[in-house]
């Protein structure tokens, strides 16, 4: 059962100019978490609403989140230190579904962190290929982690300053053309996910995407976080927090 916990921070590391990695101790959430789920985190007393942040990975009773400083909430979060306490509601939402077979995980920018957890889980009974895309070398995160978990790893940057130049779509198309894959799992900017979903559909490979929307309650009660989905041919407003954030790409109305 998800619940409200006060969790001790065990580590706060700055990964890039604006991205931080925070580890917290919480046996209860760790025991129940699944890749693709998120935590709803109270970011001090100056902002009212909790902030949704994906679980980046879990080891033992320790949860890790990796986030970019965007506004006041994430700024506050970045300033917390080892020994400080975070109020966390979680784990929330529906994660990725894992079946047998070869998996490609795609992460775009700050959408990459939850894909590490997904890659780790997929690796338990499949070969995993990761494709990550960033703006430039300065923005690259979690490269070593993905490299050590995955059988194959492709790094892309918009300006070619690290890895190959271009978007994640280039290596994805090559892989799908030349290999046998059973699933594509993805998280990142909306436009990127739309392109990933389209490509996967062309090659008839099942694709799951993790969506983002502004949230209130985080548990499915307030209906502010909806996105348009087509589960059975008719458009429906689906709650990203409770029905998502991970969706079968065929259901998403991009």
């Amino acid at each position, binding site marked *: 059962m998800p619940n409200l916990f006060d969790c001790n921070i065990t580590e706060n590391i700055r990964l890039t100019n604006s991205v931080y990695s925070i580890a917290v101790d919480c046996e209860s959430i760790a025991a129940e978490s699944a890749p693709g789920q998120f935590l709803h985190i109270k970011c001090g007393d100056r*902002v009212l609403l909790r902030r949704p942040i994906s679980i980046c990975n879990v080891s033992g009773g320790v949860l890790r989140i990796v986030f970019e400083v965007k506004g006041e909430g994430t700024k506050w979060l970045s300033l917390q230190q080892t020994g400080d306490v975070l109020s966390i509601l979680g784990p929330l939402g529906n994660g990725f579904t894992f079946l047998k077979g070869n998996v490609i995980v795609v992460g775009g920018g700050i959408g990459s962190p939850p894909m590490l957890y997904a890659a780790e889980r997929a690796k338990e009974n499949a070969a995993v290929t990761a494709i990550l895309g960033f703006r430039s070398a300065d923005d690259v995160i979690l490269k070593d982690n993905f490299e050590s978990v995955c059988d194959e790893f492709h790094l892309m940057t918009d300006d070619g300053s690290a890895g190959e130049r271009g978007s994640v779509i280039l290596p994805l198309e090559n892989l799908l053309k030349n290999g046998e894959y059973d699933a594509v799992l993805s998280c990142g900017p909306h436009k990127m996910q739309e392109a990933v979903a389209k490509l996967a559909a062309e090659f008839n490979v099942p694709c799951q995407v993790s969506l983002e929307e502004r949230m209130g309650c985080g548990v499915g009660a307030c*209906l*502010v976080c909806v996105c348009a989905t087509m589960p059975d041919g008719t458009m429906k*407003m689906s709650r990203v927090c409770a029905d998502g954030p991970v969706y079968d790409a065929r259901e998403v109305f991009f």
Partner: protein
Amino acid sequence: MADLKINFAGVELKNPIVTASGTFGFGREYGEYYDLSKLGGICVKGLTAKPREGNLPPRIAETPGGMLNSVGLQNPGIDAFITDELPFLREFDTVIIANISGNTVEEYAEMAEKLSGGNADIIEVNVSCPNVKAGGMAFGTSTEGVTAVTKAVREKTKTPVMVKLSPNVTDIASIAKAAEDAGADALSLINTLLGMRIDIQTRKPILNNNVGGLSGPAVFPVAVRMVWQAALQVKIPILGMGGVESGSDAVEMMLAGASLVGVGTACFHNPYAPLDIIVQVEQYLDKKGIGSAKELTGKVEPV
């Protein structure tokens, strides 16, 4: 131990704390966190005659001490509520308040009829939704509109009728009086205050609907003032809400004139807020040696 029971328009509640409509769904989600029977009552998500998908996202924008929402009454419709949601809610020993919104006076009347005969303990008539084009707030901002809707609902049901008022008016007292005169058994207020946020990078409003309803601690003093002004004008009991975050806020709302207190936005950052507030109200009463929660209502001593 103080007595928390409240008799509200003939309905017995075990304590004065109810969840605010639209912030608690149909109870299922928060029911995973605690026993809903601990609540005084549950106001369900606003219901309409036909199912509604609501407005396009984004539907939420944070503000200093509050938030704007533009959900636009997404709900499965009153028939689905009665068949699919009500049986679940009835498993709990708590008062069920059905919140209804119509496009026309006739729709309000039709929904009230469907809810009669035990499908709700109280009918909350929402004439104050700022997020729909027709109906909603259009009725709640004039005494004529409030009178017409309240009368139509009153004729169709013996279930207690509570009219939910909009704060987007210049004279809340006259609107409150119109509802009472038209046969309302109770009032609830406030609904959200119309607001707007703009992203200065894109020059676009944050909400897809451009405007939305403000709730949360930012509206609390406005809510207290409006409950006080309404209470001075009417004899029927009031459910006061708007920005209540703690037991002391709830006590303040009651002193202003509320018999019951609604908790909404507070649940978003603390799912346990309604239960925490019940405990805090009880502690306040015990500390002050006040025997019963109902003794607080309207006990402000204005200068």
